[in-house]
């Protein structure tokens, strides 16, 4: 999450099939409640949030599982 780029539109929250995302209860620098990761263990890495974000505020990072 690039929190301060988020405009709070909710597209990523809407599209996530695994309900990983929700809205923060803290205002970001834009004065909106930005999206945030609620439960990243549910993330399957589909990448839809990254594709639908209009503001380049969220992207997936692949982590090596040790």
């Amino acid at each position: 999450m690039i929190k301060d780029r988020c405009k709070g539109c909710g597209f990523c929250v809407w599209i996530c099939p695994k309900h990983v995302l929700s809205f923060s209860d803290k205002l970001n620098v834009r004065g909106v409640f930005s999206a945030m990761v609620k439960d990243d263990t549910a993330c399957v890495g589909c990448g839809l949030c990254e594709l639908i974000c209009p503001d380049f505020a969220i992207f997936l990072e692949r982590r090596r599982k040790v």
Partner: protein
Amino acid sequence: MAEVSLSHPLDGYLRKGILPHIWCAGCGYGVILNCFIRALRELEFNLNNLVVVSGIGCIGRISGYINADGFHTTHGRALAFATGVKLARPHLKVVVISGDGDLFAIGGNHFIHAARRNIDVTVICANNFVYGMTGGQLGPTTPLSAYTPTTPYGSVEHPFNLVYLAAGSGAVYVARWTIIHVRELITSLKKALQRKGLSFIEVISPCPTLFGRYNRLGSAVDILDWLKASSVTRYHSNPAEAEITLGGKIIVGEFVDTEKVTYSELLEEMTKKIQQRLEKEGRLTLASL
């Protein structure tokens, strides 16, 4: 655990300092930008060979956001300008990204002629159903009976069926998607960018701030629900049957997928012949005119 980052993997495709862009929270135009950039990336496209031409309107700002040669023309004239670019420098990829009003009201004439000539240009129409920048007035794609500031009693105009118009004008590739069809849109964009001739992709991206509000469509996310509920994906269906009405189905998919010799190819062939003849016969003075 999600970390807070300061940069995004696609930032290189954007000019420095353009974020936040001017589009409203809930506007789908950022999605179009996102998908377009991804299509370029997946094609490993050399951005030095790209020229983005945009018209006037909210979507018009996109040429200033993409990190490639860009030009923001007068209202409606993007395709005419793009024709000049393509013919002057045929090796460059010219993409016109503009809105429904810019491309099909004031720019309607230029669109049909560019399509007729099969100018090698990719045209992306960001259709938000209104003239957003000026306050949400009626546009050539505003659905019948919709409310806008210039149709305060509901529109009595039939809108264009853009995919039908594009197909009828001679476009070689015609597709329509909405902003929720992100994967399909990227695929179509890649196809269109690689297709010679005039390709046309309509992207339905209803304006939540104006069109949505005036027609009580709810929040931006409610509009996504509406798109999901109304969209029907059909490949190679008849574009004549793809009209959009409030309350009806929105048919998305690919409508036309053909190839046809382009204006540039014909022009090049003709020019070569002339030059060969000139080498042989030679025009020495104006007198032989």
